[in-house]
């Protein structure tokens, strides 16, 4: 069972699926959707089976595949996962089918076709799997950059009013980071060739290098910039609110839920083990950035009037917690940080989906255009509340476990940073409840009021397309509550949020060994 090339399959299936979907004839939209859904479900199944095949007690990297790819550069097509990568693969597997479901009834922007949307989506999935599964730094880089293209087209072709600006901004930010990292990757290769005779990109080999501290600092910074932009840490963050706000909901979910995790994943997988000394030297600064980011982004979130921007800022704040957990260098915090990546993907994913469903009904992203929705769409409100509570890390939801682990794990080694970070939980409550109160509570307001001639339920329909706000008008409209399809999309996330909130241990058992290994690479100060 375990010698089946799970990871290759998980990359190949969606890639092929994307090609097929793209090749479909015009007008075969429905078939395209069904194919996309089927493919993504297959990937989910593969992910689950791979988890079964994964032996917790076993080696660091399992389910490995390695084929020589570019011998002249010493590049292998080498895949393999440790617990950290595995849980991320599971997250991808869970999110993509839901995104497909959520985008099911989106109307395509004129001149475009949802067929293309789903094709890009599947390609993106393949790339994301690859980036987490790669155990060859070159391969990782290739996926890291190639991943931009599908997301670029998702934002640019299917996004909101300012999608062009957002898409280019997203692409250039990531590209700059990526190119700087490229320089560092090559540098690493050169170092390896000088130490091991011939250059290699194999992660396990590079881990053994003894790099001179000065060089380490340079290389570390090269990687760090790329990951800090991706994650994103303040002050490299300003692309995220634009992208998050303009991206189609499906894209936004994957962008914030998975794509950005590549940054934090990169810290843990590459920065720490490859450049231990530099990591230790820079840790205080990075922790400073992280903690500042937690509060800064949280305050900014409160200042937003656009729901999608708000959610994006909350994510930036959460990434601060993850970074704090990673650079605290303790098992508890590290494990918590990885779990946080997963949980944040689920919680913020749900939040984005629900916000998208609300926007689809009201046709506006402005908080001020809503009010009293709960009275008419209790299910929607409920899902919104669960997502919000998860996002403010209420005990009983999954996020609590990870946030608690991060903080309690960081406290012993970094008390000051932790105390400041803990203030973030007050702000989290503030920004979530502010948004919830303004949209769901109070008397009906804004776009819920519409001209009498408009038929009741005119705001129904399940699409998550991003429109611009219609002018508010006198009388009341009925907001359709979640449709059956939307419930199917939302329910799994809600369930996972609760279950992982009460019984997170299975995931922790998967993650912890990998984190311990990483920290042992970090080793004692040399």
């Amino acid at each position, binding site marked *: 069972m375990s010698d089946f090339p799970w990871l290759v399959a998980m990359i190949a299936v969606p890639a092929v699926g994307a090609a097929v979907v793209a090749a479909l004839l015009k007008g075969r939209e429905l078939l395209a959707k069904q194919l996309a859904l089927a493919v993504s479900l297959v990937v989910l199944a593969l992910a689950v089976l791979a988890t079964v095949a994964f032996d917790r007690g076993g080696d660091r990297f399992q389910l490995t595949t390695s084929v020589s790819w570019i011998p002249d550069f010493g590049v292998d097509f080498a895949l393999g996962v440790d617990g950290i990568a595995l849980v991320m693969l599971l997250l991808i597997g869970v999110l993509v089918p839901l995104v497909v479901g959520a985008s099911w009834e989106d109307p395509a922007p004129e001149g475009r076709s949802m067929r293309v949307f789903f094709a890009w989506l599947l390609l993106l999935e393949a790339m994301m799997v690859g980036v987490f599964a790669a155990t060859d730094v070159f391969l990782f880089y290739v996926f890291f950059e190639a991943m931009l293209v599908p997301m670029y087209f998702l934002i640019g072709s299917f996004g909101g009013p300012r999608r062009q600006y957002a898409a280019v901004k997203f692409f250039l930010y990531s590209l700059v980071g990526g190119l700087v990292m490229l320089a560092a990757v090559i540098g690493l290769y050169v170092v390896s060739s000088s130490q091991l005779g011939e250059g290699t990109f194999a992660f396990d080999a590079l881990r053994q290098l003894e790099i001179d501290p000065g060089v380490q600092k340079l290389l570390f910074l090269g990687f760090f910039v790329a990951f800090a932009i991706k994650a994103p840490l*303040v*002050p490299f*963050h*300003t692309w995220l609110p634009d992208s998050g706000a303009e991206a189609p909901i499906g894209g936004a979910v994957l962008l914030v839920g998975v794509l950005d995790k590549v940054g934090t994943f990169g810290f843990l997988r590459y920065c720490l083990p490859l450049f231990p000394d530099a990591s230790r030297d820079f840790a205080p600064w990075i922790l400073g950035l992280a903690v500042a980011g937690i509060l*800064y982004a949280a*305050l*900014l979130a*409160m*200042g*937003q009037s656009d729901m999608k921007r708000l959610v994006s800022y909350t994510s930036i704040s959460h990434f601060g917690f993850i970074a704090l957990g990673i650079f605290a260098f*303790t*098992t*508890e915090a590290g*494990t*918590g940080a990885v779990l946080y990546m997963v949980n944040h993907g689920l919680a913020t994913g749900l939040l984005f989906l629900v916000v998208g469903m609300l926007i689809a009904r009201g046709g506006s992203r402005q908080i001020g255009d809503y009010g*009293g929705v*709960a*009275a008419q769409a209790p299910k929607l409100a*409920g899902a919104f509340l669960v997502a919000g*509570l998860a996002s403010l890390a*209420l*005990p*009983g939801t999954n996020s*609590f*476990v990870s946030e*608690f*682990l991060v*903080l*309690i*794990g960081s*406290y*012993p080694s970094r*008390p000051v940073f*932790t*105390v400041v970070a*803990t*203030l973030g*939980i*007050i702000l989290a*409550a*503030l920004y979530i*409840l*502010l948004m919830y*109160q303004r949209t*769901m*509570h*109070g*008397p009906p307001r804004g776009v819920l009021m519409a001209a009498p001639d408009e038929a009741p339920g005119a705001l129904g329909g399940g699409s998550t397309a991003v429109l611009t706000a219609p002018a508010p008008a006198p009388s009341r409209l009925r907001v359709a509550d979640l449709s059956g399809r939307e419930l199917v999309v939302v329910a799994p996330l809600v369930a996972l949020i609760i279950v992982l909130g*009460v*019984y*997170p*241990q299975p995931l*922790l058992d998967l993650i*912890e060994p990998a984190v311990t290994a990483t920290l042992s690479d970090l080793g004692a100060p040399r």
Partner: protein
Amino acid sequence: METMSAEGLLSWSWLLVALPLAGAAVLLLGGRRTDRWGHLLGTATVAAAFVLAVLCTVQLAGLDERRADVDLFTFISSGDLDVRAGLLLDPLSLTFALLITGVGSLIHVYSIGYMAHDAGRRRFFAYLNLFVAAMLLLVLGNSFVALYVGWEGVGLASYLLIAFWYTRPAAATAAKKAFIMNRVGDVGLALAIFVMFAQLGTTSYAGVFAAVGTLAGGTVTALGLLLLLGACGKSGQFPLHAWLPDAMEGPTPVSALIHAATMVTAGVYLIARSAPIYDETPTARAVVLAVGAVTLLIGAIAGCAFDDIKKVLAYSTVSQIGYMFLAVGLGPAGYVAGLAHLLAHGFFKAGLFLGAGSVMHAMDDSVDMRRFGGLWRRLPVTFVTFGLGYLALIGFPFLSGYFTKDAIIEAALDRDDAWGWVLGGVAVLGAGLTAFYMTRLMLMTFFGRPRWEDGVHPHESPSVMTVPMVVLAVGSVGAGFLLVRAFPLADWLEPVFGEEHEAEHVVAPLTVGLVVTGVMLLGVLAAWLFVGRREVPVLAPVRVSPVTRAARNALYADTVNESLLMRPGQWLTRALVWLDNRGVDGAVNGLAATLGGSSSRLGRAQTGFVRTYALGMLGGAVLVAGALLAVTAG
């Protein structure tokens, strides 16, 4: 303290939490199809929990250890951190469990009637069940983490219930305010847990209390203060008390159960539970005392000035919990007294709120006492039950308040130092104020000439509402005597707080009793002089003394919060948004603009004239040659 795992019925005690939780789940997920019987299910689960609690208590009383651990499953385990989900059954936790489920059941029953005509009744019972589950987890959990989970759980339930009528902006805002101020306290609690883990490597009661002695004094004090911060947030103590009166926006049964009887006393529970920590740190304990005393007065003073019946009761709650903090702040001498007062308060304050609810029910949901008056004839049952609760609260001799409050005052005086006298004095003064504002309330509500608005026809509430009120009234009459004299709570709690040492009294109990009663009577008299004798104006007089104005503004707590925190926060947020857009993002866009600008500026060099290009080439050639020569020379 080594732990012995529970067997028999006790090992099923997790059902205490599970039952109401299941109820909540069914009601929330079941949707409309559970509307018809939802409230019954909700009540049933809590009632069942109560029965179970009683049985557990009986069995526990049988054990010589009077302590049992129920280990359930691993909650969070990573690295050195190992948090197991489990329950700790001992007299303290079960006492609370009984109070919560008992009073809870009564209020559920009451709510059946009270919410009969509300479209969201099912939702209401779901939230109530959720609250009971969380509250039970809070008191039964066997580690600070479990407590924290329940702690925030009740916070959520309280949020949902305060905002139950969420279409009213006031309700929504009050709910948010409550949650946020609670969160402030939660930060303290969370930090305390971090410190425990960092210093002791564990968060379970057993582990922490066993090792707390080994900690440095400063650390223990820090622990104590952090826990106190949490307690203040939850129990509406100074300086985090401003949310509790606003919380009255919720339906009255909620005010009775959550914001009077149970949740707001969680802080007292926390401090009592953490006795081993506070035993190590007189400093923190002194702060607890100070908080208690200050809050006691603030609550009492504010209570005198409001015309909103629920607000008055809310401030009374604040003040009474101040008494409890004062008590537990006294240490071993006061724990039992504090808890006794807590239980008694649970009865009579719940009763008073239910009574107030019944009054509102009769007065078309009006809460303005200036529009009441002369209700005793129309609402006999309510009047009687409410009256008994009133007497119990002001400490009328031989009713529950009398015993428990006096016990606290005695304990305070027994310190036999200046502090003792100050605290005792404050407590006595508080008793007088309590008598004043409660009498004022009685007079304005039940006596005098009716000042009802037109179209209001007061009528007694249905029995489903009155019965619980009667039960609670009985409780408020008897609880004090039972707890202090008949079956001393002290003996029952002895395994938790150790032998009750019979302190020799500085002032004879009888004297204390007489003094307190005297002050109480003075308060009543004053109230009659100010309110009872003359006609109550329907509109609150505007030209009043600064003292009254201050009292009406609850001593400006909200004003301070707003001007010190809210406004600056909003300002800071606006500033940061500006900074982020203009500054951080502006820098990036600026860079892009600069590149674009320099591009078109450099582009000018591309004049299209061959001769310019040639010049450029020549210049380049000269540069190249020069550079090369320089390199060679150098």
